[in-house]
């Protein structure tokens, strides 16, 4: 016996060690599939490490416009120095000087206008005319200083191609909102979207460096995917703590009433604590991280694990005969009640083990957590509790009254059999008649409120960062080919832009054309002597005399021997970050990938038209993020439904094998099925959108409910009654333990049902009424032996 204690303590220590060192995450990517389709792979990359996941949208409110713009300028400079951000954009163009210089130096490789025709005498003449037509206007201020080096206006052509159509409003030298008193900034963190600690660090940096401006009366608002993830994690942590405290307090009170003993109370918590620790440790070891939702779910495991302790403490309570030896109670419990609890454990495991094989890491985590946690809790009850409390809980508290009350209620319950039958039938009809309530979506797992989403949408429209609704993904074995593909796709998209189908699109080839294109452009540049002749021809009667254009001829000459730009040669230049946002380098077996994000016109994106336009560009994929995510989640839910169905079937088989009677199996299965139906119908009637976590909740109802039904079956068939204890007191103990176990579950899950976190709320909403109904229905439906009376 002492050996069991030592093993338990060591295991607990190891689990605690792993738990402390675990990596806790809260992003939704854990709820995305691990074996995705090609479109989903693009999507997942983007969600985990794409630029969209690293954007931080920032607003500065309050104070005067001048104070806001001064703060924006100065603060952005501080942030750029922090090294935590790849870029801070606030409309202050002075930061682009280095980028501008690089682009200017490589203009003959990068300008889309460079071709042989442009460098003919006629081409030069019209290019020069076009450029000088901008002079004498504010637009000319930019080109005037470089006119003699760039008379053909390649700078202008590059700028035109890169100018976004939806740029933010600029006032006082910084970006401002169009319809609010707010300066806006757009930051990109270096940390990946899925690196929550990195995201949190960046956000803390934002807040702490803003303090001086806050002291001036300015207000900082921050939004974005990373912000949401960090906030969710904090909120989940906060809620879990709050719920754990409230739940513990309620359960402590209940136990106090039931046992009237602190020692019993402390013992009752052991299986729960062991289960939670074991669950976290096993998940952490097998997945390398623990998801916040898994953790939140962990608190709900209290529900079933505390039952084990209650069953033991009450049922092993030795009858007060002075002659009986120490430990009689536990031996009797192990012989008489443990098989029932063990069977309950097996049925619960059947339900959850199905989740372990889910293709979605988040769901598999829930499964692993529950399986490990329940086994640990049951083993603790079986082997550790008999050592610590050989004869169950000493105190009696109000248990006798509880037992008596439950006994009377249980005796009356069978009279309710028919009304309850009718209720279950009505629920079934209602479910067939109402539209399916299983329509929850991925967003319903997120605890982000509507206000935060609205603010996010406002900031997005302020900075012109429209939600990347549609992407075009291209992939190829190497950099040169994927860039060439991007050029091919770009040519087709240009046509759609000209037709007004698209407003615009972002492509890396404006910054980094394919090597083939660069070579063609370089080949179009004439040598110095040739160019001098053509310039002389072109400048006749022109606004700039030929002899003044020597700097132009020299620059073209230099460009003829410029090496081809590649992603590697951009390293360390300001272009690298911008290119990386759209060009994903291949690694090992992963291909190089280009992502073109599209800006929709007024009518939105016509995906079919895009697919038609891109037909013939090898491997071009049109990825609609919303649709893909929706499809993912439905697949997720479908898979989970199947698994739950298989789990339910396994539970039935297991019970059948154990009970060896169709009649008893039916008796045990009926109340659980009816409880599930009634809760499901009530939720459907209420208009709730059910999702994956409701399903998990139903699994929990089946797991816990099957315990109740089995105990009633045991009671009414008089299984394992021995002569030591009078039948009456023993039955009363069993009934009291069931009522107490049910009360603790209903209380802890009712607490979840009032949580503000959708995931926890969903589970609580299902489990609290579900388990209560399971108990009542078990009392009503489970029959004794065929001859009748209980």
């Amino acid at each position, binding site marked *: 016996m002492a050996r069991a204690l030592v093993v338990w303590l060591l295991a607990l220590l190891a689990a605690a060690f792993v738990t402390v060192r675990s990596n806790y995450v809260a992003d939704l990517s854990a709820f995305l599939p691990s074996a995705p389709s090609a479109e989903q792979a693009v999507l997942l990359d983007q969600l985990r490490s794409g630029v969209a996941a690293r954007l931080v949208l920032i607003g500065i409110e309050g104070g005067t416009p001048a104070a806001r713009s001064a703060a924006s300028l100065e603060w952005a400079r501080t942030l750029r120095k922090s090294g935590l951000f790849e870029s801070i954009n606030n409309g202050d163009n002075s930061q682009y000087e280095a980028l501008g210089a690089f682009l200017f130096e490589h203009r003959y490789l990068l300008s889309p206008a460079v071709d042989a025709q442009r460098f003919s005498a006629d081409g030069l003449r019209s290019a020069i*005319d076009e450029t000088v037509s901008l002079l004498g206007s504010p637009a000319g201020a930019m080109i*005037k200083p470089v006119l003699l080096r760039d008379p053909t206006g390649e700078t202008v052509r590059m700028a035109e191609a890169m100018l976004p*159509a*939806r740029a933010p409003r*600029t006032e006082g030298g910084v970006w401002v909102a169009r319809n609010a008193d707010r300066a806006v900034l757009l930051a990109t963190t270096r940390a990946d979207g899925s690196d929550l600690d990195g995201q949190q660090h960046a956000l803390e940096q934002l807040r702490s460096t803003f303090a001086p401006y806050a002291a001036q009366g300015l207000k900082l608002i921050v939004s974005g995917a990373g912000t949401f993830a960090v906030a969710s994690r904090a909120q989940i942590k906060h809620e879990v703590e709050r719920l754990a405290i409230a739940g513990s307090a309620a359960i402590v009170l209940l136990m106090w009433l039931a046992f009237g003993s602190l020692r019993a109370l402390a013992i009752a918590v052991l299986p729960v604590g062991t289960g939670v620790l074991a669950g976290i440790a096993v998940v952490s070891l097998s997945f390398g991280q623990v998801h916040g939702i898994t953790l939140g779910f962990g608190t709900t495991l209290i529900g079933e694990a505390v039952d084990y302790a209650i069953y033991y403490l009450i049922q092993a309570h030795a009858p007060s005969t002075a002659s009986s030896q120490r430990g009689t109670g536990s031996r009797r419990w192990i012989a008489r009640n443990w098989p029932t609890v063990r069977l309950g454990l097996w049925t619960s495991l059947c339900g959850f083990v199905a989740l372990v094989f889910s293709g979605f890491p988040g769901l598999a985590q829930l499964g692993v957590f529950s399986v490990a946690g329940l086994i640990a809790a049951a083993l603790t009850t079986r082997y550790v509790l008999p050592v610590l409390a050989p004869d169950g809980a000493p105190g009696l508290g109000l248990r006798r009254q509880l037992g008596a009350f439950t006994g009377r209620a249980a005796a009356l319950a069978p009279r309710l059999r028919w009304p309850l039958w009718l209720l279950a039938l009505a629920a079934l009809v209602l479910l067939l008649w109402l539209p399916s309530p299983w329509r929850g979506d991925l967003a319903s797992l997120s605890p982000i409120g509507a206000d935060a989403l609205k603010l996010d949408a406002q900031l997005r429209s302020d900075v*012109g960062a429209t939600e990347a609704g549609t992407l075009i993904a291209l992939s190829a074995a190497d950099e040169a080919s994927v860039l060439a593909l991007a050029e091919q796709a770009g040519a087709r998209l240009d046509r759609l832009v000209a037709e007004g189908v698209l407003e615009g699109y972002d492509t890396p080839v404006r910054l980094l054309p394919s090597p083939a294109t660069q070579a063609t452009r370089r080949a179009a540049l004439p040598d110095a002597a040739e160019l001098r002749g053509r310039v002389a021809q072109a400048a006749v009667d022109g606004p700039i005399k030929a002899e003044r254009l020597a700097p132009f001829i020299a620059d073209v000459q230099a460009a003829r021997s410029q090496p081809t730009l590649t992603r590697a040669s951009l390293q360390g230049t300001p272009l690298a970050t911008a290119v990386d946002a759209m060009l994903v380098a291949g690694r090992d077996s992963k291909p190089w990938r280009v992502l073109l994000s599209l800006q929709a016109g007024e009518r939105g994106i016509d995906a079919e038209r895009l697919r038609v336009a891109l037909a013939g560009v090898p491997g071009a994929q049109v990825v609609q993020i919303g649709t893909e995510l929706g499809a993912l989640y439905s697949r997720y839910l479908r898979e989970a439904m199947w698994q739950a169905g298989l789990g339910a079937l396994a539970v039935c088989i297991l019970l059948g094998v154990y009970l060896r009677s169709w009649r008893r199996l039916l008796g045990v299965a009926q109340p659980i099925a009816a409880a599930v139906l009634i809760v499901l119908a009530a939720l459907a009637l209420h208009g709730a959108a059910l999702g994956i976590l409701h399903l998990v909740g139903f699994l929990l109802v089946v797991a816990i409910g099957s315990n109740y039904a089995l105990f009633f079956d045991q009671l009414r068939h008089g299984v394992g009654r021995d002569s030591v204890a009078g039948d009456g007191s023993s039955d009363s103990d069993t009934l009291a333990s069931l009522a107490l176990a049910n009360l603790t579950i209903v209380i802890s899950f009712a607490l979840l049902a009032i949580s503000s976190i959708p995931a926890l709320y969903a589970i609580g909403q299902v489990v609290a009424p579900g388990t209560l109904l399971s108990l009542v229905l078990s009392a009503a439906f489970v029959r004794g032996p065929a001859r009748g009376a209980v």
Partner: protein
Amino acid sequence: MNMLRRALLSGAAAALMGLGGTAWAAAAFDLAQLTQLLASKRSGEATFVEKREVSVLDRTLMTSGRLSFEAPDTFVRENLKPQRERVAVVGNMVTMSRGDRSRTVALDSVPEASVIIEAIRGTLTGNRESLQKLFETGVSGSAERWSLELVPRDARLRAQVATVRVSGRQAEVREMQVVMPDGDRSTMTIEPVAAKSAGPAAAGSGAAR
């Protein structure tokens, strides 16, 4: 050319008179009256000839084309010579087309461009609010022959455009001169196209008030 010289002279005179002149003018004929007069004309078409003097170039540039506007916020400038080029402003969106290329940008995202565009669009449509928001304004002359001087309020924008001077008669804008801080300037002479019937009538009623 005669008209141009006159415009230049009146511009110089206005500049010489400075604030005193403005104050004197305000008493007689002010921005409120001018914009009311201009706003009475809801739409219009004109041809223009623009002359630009740019220090880096070896000769002045001449451009000609058409202008049109329609209240409340549409303005189109179309160059016909030496090259075809079109700038169309509708609300906050500017579309620039040249040959087969076309770009659309949000006007308020490019404040330098909005100075020029609001100066002419705001004047043509008589949008007093927009003019006063962007510029220090000075009106001189009378309804019969007025001149409006616009200086950008924002120092950043004054580094791009020093002053815009618009002058005209009654509800018709006849000349616009833009002076850059480095002395480069463009002067656009505007000739209304044989007016639609509503034009002069509206202008007349504006003058009567």
